[in-house]
């Protein structure tokens, strides 16, 4: 891959990270605004302790909710990347092959003599799972400790990918 291409991809990654930061900042500002109004309301009705609980609670709940939104977005983006692959069996074997830990390879290995996907698609998936902030969240779920969980997650993502493919 040329230096220019690498720079372009790196820039794209930074852009994605910036998008996440903007969402996080917007959500924090929204929560602060909400707390401000709650504080005013609480002062009007003179229930001071409620404000203390609100200040701590809304921030915590908001941070978990933001995390949930990121996971949904990561799943959606992974599905859109997988929708480009036509050879599902290859993908399934490769992603869960103990012989070929797939994220170590920039270029697709060939297990069990299966047909290879085009290198660009593989590269895109590889970069997404290794470098993209959403991709890293998706790869955590994709390579979770439980094999049963991995299977279910990939099945769901494949179903979403199918839907995306049909819409195209």
């Amino acid at each position, binding site marked *: 891959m040329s230096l220019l291409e690498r720079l372009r991809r790196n820039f794209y990654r930074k852009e994605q990270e910036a998008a996440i930061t903007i969402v996080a900042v917007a959500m924090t500002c929204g929560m602060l605004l909400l707390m401000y109004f709650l504080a005013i309301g609480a002062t009007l009705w003179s229930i001071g302790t409620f404000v203390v609980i609100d200040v701590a609670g809304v921030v915590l*709940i908001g941070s978990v909710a933001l995390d949930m939104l990121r996971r949904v977005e990561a799943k959606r983006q992974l599905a859109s990347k997988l929708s480009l692959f036509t050879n599902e069996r290859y993908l399934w074997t490769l992603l869960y092959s103990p012989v070929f830990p797939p994220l170590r390879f920039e270029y697709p290995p060939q297990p069990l003599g299966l047909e290879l996907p085009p290198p660009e698609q593989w590269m895109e998936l590889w970069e997404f799972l290794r470098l993209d902030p959403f991709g890293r969240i998706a790869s955590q779920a994709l390579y979770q400790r439980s094999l049963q969980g991995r299977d279910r997650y990939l099945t769901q993502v494949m179903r979403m990918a199918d839907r995306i493919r049909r819409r195209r």
Partner: protein
Amino acid sequence: MQAFLVSLIGGCLFPILPVLVEFGLTNAVRLETLAVTSTVYAAAVGMASRNQAIAFSSFFFSLICIVIYSAETYKTPAQEGMPFIKYGALISGGIMLIYFASYVIERFSRHYIESEPYVEF
């Protein structure tokens, strides 16, 4: 969805059992019980969480609940008006509710969105 529901039963209903039992038997909940349950509940949710904000804040709020418990247990009649005693029930209950909500949202993303099993057998 099944794992999510099981995690709600295991992580939300079982920990509040002492409070429910006391309420069922005496028609009231003492502040000590509420504070101790909140202490354990906040710490347990924090330790089981993958979210750093929840994990670290839980220890802080657990300590607050311990202080409320100590204040309620060793108070003298002159100390009745102390904020931690006066608002102790509200603070402990609020902490429980906040961690309850965080737990539900986090478990939804882990068990429903990411298909992580609660227990495998």
